[in-house]
């Protein structure tokens, strides 16, 4: 904060006073946020706080009415579409698991695997040994080796969540946005997912949105509390849960 210039250039993702409204309703209201390279950040907040909308803005799905969204200090994300932003290195896992249901688990990963996305490149793509090994490794990481050749539609809900995380890994983005990864998971699966995300955060920057407080505690990272479209509090989980506004915003609902 003292030297704002170096702050901006070293910051991986920088949202400054972003607002967006839908039919007059301000879903995001003067939101500012900075994510450092290598950081994992947890975002919590009541339903309708604007967490998913924030991800929509970062990934180019929704254009903000005002404010700046800078990636790596120079790319203005509000000027690019989903494809360009994905190619620049921002990957996303959706709140509702979204995988390609009519294709196998392996094919889903193959589609996500980083590489040339062009029409000709895909037409004449031949899987290299390195690519095959990478897919195998990811299958192992997300514990889906045994189901590699089954259709994604046959996976359980939790496994679909994991497949989608695996697709993020295959995509190998600089920044991962993960929206409610443990929704609908069993307790055991939730613990595994926290482990997985901590593992991923060693090599990637991550933003995780979640409701599950136990899960957030397991992640053990800096937390941002979002309410009514802006930041309510920021800091360690203990710090923010002691914050009077946070208590009110959660208990008030």
């Amino acid at each position: 904060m003292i030297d704002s210039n170096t702050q901006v250039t070293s910051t991986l993702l920088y949202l400054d006073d972003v607002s967006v409204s839908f039919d007059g309703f301000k879903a995001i209201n003067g939101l500012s946020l900075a994510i450092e390279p290598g950081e994992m950040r947890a975002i919590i907040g009541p339903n309708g706080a604007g967490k998913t909308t924030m991800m929509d803005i970062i990934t180019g799905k929704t254009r903000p009415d005002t404010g700046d969204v800078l990636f790596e200090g120079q790319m203005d994300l509000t000027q690019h579409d989903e494809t360009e932003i994905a190619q620049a290195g921002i990957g996303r896992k959706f709140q509702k698991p979204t995988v390609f249901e009519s294709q196998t688990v392996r094919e889903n990963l193959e589609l996500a695997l980083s590489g040339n996305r062009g029409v000709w490149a895909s037409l004449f793509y031949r899987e290299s040994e390195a690519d095959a090994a990478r897919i195998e490794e990811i299958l192992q990481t997300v514990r889906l080796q045994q189901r590699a050749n089954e259709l994604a539609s046959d996976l359980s809900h939790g496994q679909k969540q994991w497949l989608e995380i695996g697709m993020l890994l295959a995509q190998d983005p600089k920044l991962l946005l993960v929206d409610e990864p443990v929704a609908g998971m069993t307790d055991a699966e939730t613990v595994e997912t926290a482990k997985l995300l901590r593992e991923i955060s060693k090599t990637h920057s991550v933003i995780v949105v979640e409701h599950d407080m136990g899960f957030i505690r397991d992640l053990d990272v800096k937390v941002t509390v979002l309410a009514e479209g802006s930041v309510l509090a920021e800091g360690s989980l203990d710090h923010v849960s002691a914050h009077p506004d946070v208590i009110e915003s959660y208990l008030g609902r």
Partner: protein
Amino acid sequence: MISAFLFRGLAGRIAWVAAFIALLGILVPLSNLMLPSDHALYVPDYIVSLFGKYLTYALLAMALDLVWGYCGILSLGHGAFFALGGYAMGMYLMRQIGSRGVYGDPILPDFMVFLNWKELPWYWYGFDQFWFAAIMVLAIPGLLAFVFGWFAFRSRVTGVYLSIITQAMTYALLLAFFRNDMGFGGNNGLTDFKDILGYTLQNPATRAGLFAAAAFALSLALVISSAIVRSKFGKVLLATRDAESRARFLGYRVEHVKLFVFTLSAMMAGIAGALYVPLVGIINPGEFAPANSIEVVIWAAVGGRGTLIGPIIGAITVNLGKSWFTAQFPEYWLFVLGGLFVAVTVFMPKGMLGTLSSFSDKVKSLKPAPKPSQTEAGEMRKEGEAS
């Protein structure tokens, strides 16, 4: 690179079907030309022409399957690309007539003399050359599809809205081609063709040659399409069909994916139209009728979309049924066609081919010993769940 690419297209049953169609392209003309007409295996002239026409329909239906079955683009305007390919061929055939027309003008087709035109419009230049017409057969439908797709896909028009504007496109062309001053023969279209590449169209040998050309074109298009859907690009097509926005967030340029496959499909439809016109001897604006394009969708649905082979079977069986019905009970054909579509949609959503394959899968799974790979996977799954 290309041969390895095409080789991948020959996987599985595609290879057999493509070989079978190519073989028909050799055997049917041979039988028609070589065997005496009382021979048991003799294929009569009218069958050669009729089935040649069906083969061009099959190519059209397969082209539609590439965009609809694999990429989820329900085009209700593929008849337009077919007709444009047909017109390009028709213009060549018109210019081959030369001074043998009713009015005997060496350059101008009869309808232009009739309209009192003094010279050939610029857009008829070059069509006296077969190679030029052949390029136009691909270029005109391809260009229209490219320009149309460029705007539609960039604006992210999808689903029903896209289907409706493809109908509007073919309808607009229908109205345009009806006009005499467009210079394509208006209402009557192009007809009274004499010969193609110097061969008389009335000659059975020419028709047998056209049949062979249609069979080879279908066979080759099938192999190319199969190579495409089996490549990684084919997976991208399915990804676009099933979860378009997910594909975008993975970094795929979805509009380019659609544009490529839509343009390619339109060019295949154009070839189908170009082969159809010399076989039936006429092309008129009626080919642009919106109902024609809808019929193609029914062929593909009946045969089984997303299979490439299904729409080929669908196009041939539905048209066989049509020939029989329109001879027996002409008034009822449209009701039968509509009923067929509803029945297939409700009872056989995967079409004839899909229903057949899932039936044969069931029969296989009734056998006592399941495939080893299945047991293995099943056990591992249980292990995984226990841990």
